[in-house]
């Protein structure tokens, strides 16, 4: 597997890491394989736009970098885009081949994002 400089940089210097004061939605997902836990917090506008996205947690380079890259990517986009995103999208954003054994690491943050959005919509009665 290819650990690109791009990916390692996001791991060592994560963007969008932290917490949000009174988030509109939050979710925690873990990956038992790595012992990774990624928590996600979102502030979502009335029109369904992700205004702020933050993650927290510890894990391997793939899961941490993926979380950081995804938060950065989805900030400013609509929740619909999170719902539409899939593994292919994550791989394109990471820009590397992911071996099957590491796929779960790469996708744990996306799972958390989707869970946060779906909880948010349920709460709002959508």
């Amino acid at each position, binding site marked *: *597997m*290819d*650990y690109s400089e791009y990916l*390692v940089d996001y*791991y*060592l210097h994560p963007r969008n890491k932290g917490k949000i004061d009174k988030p509109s939605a939050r979710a925690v997902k873990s990956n038992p*394989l*790595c*012992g*990774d836990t990624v928590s996600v917090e979102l502030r979502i506008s009335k029109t369904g736009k992700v205004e702020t996205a933050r993650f927290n947690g*510890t*894990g*391997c*380079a*793939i899961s941490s970098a993926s979380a950081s890259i995804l938060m950065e990517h989805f900030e400013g986009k609509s929740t619909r885009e999170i719902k539409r995103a899939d593994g292919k999208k994550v791989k394109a954003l990471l820009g590397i081949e992911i*071996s099957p054994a*590491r796929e779960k*690491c790469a996708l744990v943050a996306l799972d958390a994002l989707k869970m946060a959005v779906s909880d948010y919509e349920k709460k709002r009665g959508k």
Partner: protein
Amino acid sequence: MAGFSLANVQRDFPLITGGKIAYLDNAATTQKPVSVLEKMDSFYREYNANVHRGIHRLSERATDEYEGAREKIARFIGAKSPKEIVFTKNTTESLNLLSRTLPKLLGNRGTVLSTEMEHHSNIVPWQNSGMKFDYVPITGWGGELDLDSFALKAGKASIVTLTHASNVLGTINPVEKLGRLVPKESFLILDCAQSVPNMPVNVGKLGADFIAFSGHKMCGPTGIGVLWGKEELLENLPPFLYGGDMISSVSMKGAEWNSLPWKFEAGTPPIGEAIGLGEAVTYLKRIGMERIRTHEEKLASYCMKRLSEEIPNARVLGPLDAKKRGGLVAFSIDGVHPHDISGILDNFNIAVRAGFHCAEPVSKKLSLPGGSTRASFYLYNDPSEVDLLIDGLKKAEFLFKR
């Protein structure tokens, strides 16, 4: 075999011949020598038939080979009789067999005492056995059992079950000494998955009532494991799985059980696999278990030395004295996740294991949320593969330098 020549040994294993890969994941499963592959191939090509029932020559030959494998394995571990060798799927199934049958014999009364360094297969079956469950803690990074706690708890336990050699810490437990602390009327079970493949083990000297091990960790195929038990104890145990071959006669009112060891072997067994394991044992015996042990000890010792000298951020789990541990070295490196280490090593054709190694409580105890990285050696590994490992680790450290 005249001498233990590494080059000759490596040539016996097609998958690793010629340094195609530094395979250092032997505690998970080992590679298979040509003789085992050929033996299994000849079963399927030349005498494939079911055992114990056919009145025809193929079945008779298959039965002879199947039972012959059992005899070889019995001799290999010093069992009194082949009746004491029950074929199972693996160590896990052997331990499950005991966790389902011993509590029945005891009417679910009493406590099962396990340890904090066990593989999940020697924890979870007992947590779900219907008996009370307790464990002996480990001392910490030194990876030894808390002997005071063992002495205190073993005297009150009806079943004591522990690993002979830990698959994470490497620790070889002083089982003969510990066994003397277990009351005579209680049962002592040893998980020998990491000892029988790697060092001389003689059940006559261990002091255990039952031991369990897997074929695939000792040059044999997957799908075949062994439960050894003292004959009179196996005789008293109720059956585990019910069905064909484990009965002597059946009516619509009930059944009588077959004699040992077949009472515990319901249904068509893994015949080719058992025959393959028999051949694996022949192979290991030819090399010599004492030699294998010495070879692994040297590799583990060399690996720990290079780690401590050249990877200052690495910390080895378990005893640092190679005499006290098996041929595996698990370590953690500050700032680099085990999965990333093994991912990077894989780029250099080095296979190691990363994570909890199916023994999560050890990682919890040592506060390693991502587990550790483990290099485990076998007879065909050599010091140059440790060199490759160290080079790979240096590259991983460099990549993740903050």
